């Protein structure tokens, strides 16, 4: 599914964060959204997945305007810190994600995804028992089990050390590729650029590249 963002404008009070953001991400395409801290990356991602309503502009995924239902069914999201529901173990988190996304659980897919991300041995662990790297991999698994068409990650590596950063980025790229999903990663860490074919720059409320 193609993601098309056009003419997004967003202000918090008098502060204009996004001025006129437009971008297109083809089906299966992978891109890095690079911008300084406070440049509006998180705001833009929120708008893209329908969590925030922009002042102007439109977002469509596969020619459909994005809203709660579209996000639920087609978009997998990974945040920097909010990874898993704290009361449930890793496996239960994944099953819950599936149920919320499309009403059914697919345990085989859950186990396969845990295996793919190399955390099947931690399936029964509660979120607070996981290391940073494990938690981030679990969050990626959570986003993947719903078979998304678009995978969005907001600073997925900022809590990780250098080694883990590279591993997790590789994982995201590989997972998105094998799932046939487009991938958009927001970060201020320009070390990741080498792993991506396309880099978008967010500056002064506009996206270039």
């Amino acid at each position, binding site marked *: 599914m193609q993601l098309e963002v056009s003419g997004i404008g967003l202000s918090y009070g008098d502060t204009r964060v996004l001025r006129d953001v437009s971008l297109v991400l083809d089906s299966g395409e992978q891109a890095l959204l690079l911008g300084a801290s406070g440049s509006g990356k*998180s*705001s833009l991602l*929120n708008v893209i*997945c329908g*969590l*925030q309503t922009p002042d102007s502009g439109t977002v469509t995924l596969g020619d459909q305007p994005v809203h*709660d239902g579209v*996000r*639920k*069914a087609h978009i997998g*999201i990974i*945040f*920097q*810190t*909010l*990874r*898993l*529901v*704290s*009361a*449930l173990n890793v496996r*239960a988190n994944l099953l*819950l*994600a599936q149920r*919320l*996304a499309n009403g059914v659980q697919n345990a085989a897919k859950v186990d396969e995804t845990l295996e793919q991300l190399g955390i099947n041995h931690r399936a029964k662990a509660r979120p607070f028992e996981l290391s940073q790297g494990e938690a981030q991999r679990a969050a990626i698994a*959570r986003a993947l089990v719903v078979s998304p068409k678009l995978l969005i990650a*907001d600073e997925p590596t900022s809590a990780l050390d250098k080694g883990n950063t590279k591993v997790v980025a590789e994982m995201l790229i590989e997972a998105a590729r094998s799932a046939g999903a487009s991938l958009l990663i927001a970060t201020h860490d320009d070390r990741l650029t080498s792993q991506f074919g396309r880099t978008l720059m967010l500056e002064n409320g506009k996206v270039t590249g």
Partner: protein
Amino acid sequence: MISLALAYLRDRPLTTALNVLLLAISVAMLVLLLQFGEQARERLERDAAGVDLVVGAKGSPLQLILSSIFHIDQPTGNIPHNSLDRLRSNPAVSRVVPLALGDNFRGFRIVGTDATFAQSYSLELAEGAQFDGPMQAVIGSRVAEETGAQLGQRFIGNHGFANGNGDGQGHDHAPFETVGILAPSGTVADRLILTSVESVWDVHGISHDHLEEDQESHDHDNGETTNASAPQSHIPSLEPDLTALLVTYRNASAAIRVPAMVNRLTEMQAAVPAIETARLLELLDASIEGIRVFAWLLAATGGLAIFVALLNMARGREGDLALLRVMGASPIQVFATVILEGVIAAAVGAVAGWIGAHALIGIVRSQFATLTDLGLTAWAPVSGEAFLILAVIAIGALAALIPAAQVYRIDPARVLARS
């Protein structure tokens, strides 16, 4: 969503346990009160059913009712035997049951009476026959159960009303013979031993030959017995006296004339069971009311504890809830999770309290026979209990309402921006 609510409850076991415990205790108290009030009321009404008036020696009317209907207090004294015939000859009276009390067998009261007693309580025999000859006795179902007495078994009465086994006061010279066992009736008769009035006199060595001759005659005159009303019947009277009479009216006008007649013409007193029972229940209700208010306050505290716990949770779990929303949960679903938590905690508390209360009644009942005497049964839920459990669950839902509303308003984007 239920599994999620359960997971959250399990996630803070101490708080949950405390909330559940608070509600369980209050529900247990309320169930106990309901049970006690209801069963006591039922029992009082069942035992007094069919008896419009009790005639006995002067004294406290409540004591007279307690001793002659509920068989739990000392009698007020004795009344002359001819009073029975006098009342029976009254056209406004349909039935008079004579009672001659004074002895017990292993704590079960021996009641000297006649065939009208069984009529009055609609008693039926499970085995054997009615008492007929001298020293024959019919025992209540619980008496048979607890003493293991069987047909043909002989037993010796002890003087007084408490269990007096081995205190040397047994009437060894006059053993009773069990000729019948009553079917359970749910009345005080289950715990009584019925025999003839004459047998009770025989035990105490009271001569009654001259009475037996004209048993059926209504106009015999026995001057010796009319003035013999001893203040306490456990001092054996040497006269062929009775302890009390249970009177059933033939018509409504009797309610005015018969008590007036008894009180005016004799040195006996007439007590109305309905009035004394009502007075008893009033006393009972007043004390129950006080505890009930306390128990509901406790339930409210339980609700408040759930409220505070959920409010804290709503704040501490904002991130989780925002994530749920991002994953596709609707605001209603998130709202429902919180309500469910309150409802589940309250329901577990209510059910635990309910089971606890009934188990407690069962345990206490098996330990103390007096409670069984009062008619407390363990697993007989009364209608108020369903309401009680629902009310407590409603408290849980109500306590969850404000935290749930807060959670409902969560804006995931804002929470994400903050974290």
